[in-house]
């Protein structure tokens, strides 16, 4: 499942794919995001990383690992399933729920949401609703590996691995070794 973004669009999965980020690019991007999060929030003890399943969780864990190395203590990442908060539930069959795991009380904390692709912004809107019912964070920030534009809501990312201008007919696929065979970001469809 590509838990990246939500609006239904044309299926171009048979078109040739081109790789825009390879494993080294992804690694560098995550390292940079890690440092940006630490710089922005100086005292990282207040930060709670919450990935949005599936690949957002993998990315959050990778960032947590990097943060642990830099800070010299164990920092864990949680998972926030937003399925029940989606605004497009009735457009598709009922989906299986992903696991939600909040490592810590989020009241008064800085929550950094982590997702793989930021597109329409609807997933993040759902995540903000879900967070709202779990507690009252001091602030919520957003880290994404790819920002491909085409926002449908007034939402922007605080930390971006790569801005990737795309057309609507294109499809961005993030592969991560935790759930896929390799680390890569591919674009399918459109003008290859």
């Amino acid at each position: 499942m590509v838990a990246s973004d939500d609006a239904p669009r044309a299926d171009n999965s048979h078109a040739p794919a081109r790789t825009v980020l390879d494993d080294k690019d992804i690694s560098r991007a995550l390292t940079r995001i890690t440092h940006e999060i630490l710089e922005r929030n100086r005292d990282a003890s207040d930060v709670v990383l919450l990935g949005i399943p599936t690949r957002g969780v993998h990315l959050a864990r990778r960032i947590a690992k990097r943060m642990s190395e830099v800070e010299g203590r164990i920092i864990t990442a949680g998972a926030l399933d937003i399925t029940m908060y989606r605004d497009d539930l009735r457009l598709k069959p009922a989906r299986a729920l992903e696991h939600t795991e909040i490592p810590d009380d989020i009241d008064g904390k800085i929550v950094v949401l982590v997702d793989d692709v930021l597109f329409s912004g609807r997933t993040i809107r759902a995540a903000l609703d879900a967070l709202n019912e779990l507690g009252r964070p001091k602030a919520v920030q957003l880290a994404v590996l790819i920002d491909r534009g085409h926002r449908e809501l007034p939402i922007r990312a605080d930390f971006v691995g790569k801005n990737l201008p795309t057309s609507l007919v294109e499809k961005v696929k993030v592969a991560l070794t935790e759930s896929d065979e390799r680390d890569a970001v591919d674009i399918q469809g459109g003008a290859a």
Partner: protein
Amino acid sequence: MTFTHLLSAGDLDRTDAIRILDTAEELLGLASRPIKKLPTLRGRTVVNLFFEDSTRTRISFEAAAKRLSADVINFSAKGSSVSKGESLKDTALTLQAMGADAVVIRHQHSGAPHRLANAKWTNGAVINAGDGTHEHPTQALLDAFTMRRHLGELEGKNITIVGDVLHSRVARSNALLLDTLGANVTLVAPPTLLPVGIEKWPVETSYDLDSSLEKADAVMMLRVQQERMNAAFFPSAREYSRRYGLDTPRLNRLPDHAIVMHPGPMNRGMEITADVADHVRSVIVEQVTNGVAVRMAVLYLLLGGAAGDSTTEEGTE
């Protein structure tokens, strides 16, 4: 999901059943959150259509629907036009006109939910909340859920169900669901309380409770109604509880990890002694808690998506 109604535990294949249990597992955490409500079924209407009194089942479904933000209408046969002789058909047409997205039906006649679903009197999803002496699929799901939390995956587990199998919708649904989940089910009852043709069921049967205890991972005691005694199904309550009741000596013969279950309401002193009912290995109260999560899962999976869908698409986003 491969089903649009939940009429029988037999409607569920293994994938569906596990999906419901997994979903319920995620939803169980909701009960410990400050806000026990999800917006998922906002604008959907769930009707609890109860032709037979069952406060506990109705409350469980009501809580489940409300925690998913559905609008809930309780329609009880008592004090409604049904008791004045309105037919199931007319009641269903009324509910259809009211825009019911799901009808949770409890009925004293076996098969009434099937009639409701198959006669096309309503377009809503029909959920069987217990019909006559037929089935009670959400009870079986919450039982399986409770067992899974204590025993792990149910594949290969030995479950012993004791009592009035003939008249028990809980036993029927459990036998079907537990078989789907790969458990070994043993039904224990006096021969008069086992239905004709039970040899075709995917279960073992026994007339002897004592011989079925040592290997049991879970023992489920069924309610036995006193009035069965008058119809000569067994000679006396005392003889029944001596031969088929779960008391402390029998409890002590169970394996250490085994749990004791009862779908409720209990006849303390009849099929189960008070000591056993309140014993630390009894999970009877937990069954009630789990009931809400399981019913939320069923409502979500039936109503949470687009109507009439059957599979989950992957990678289309």
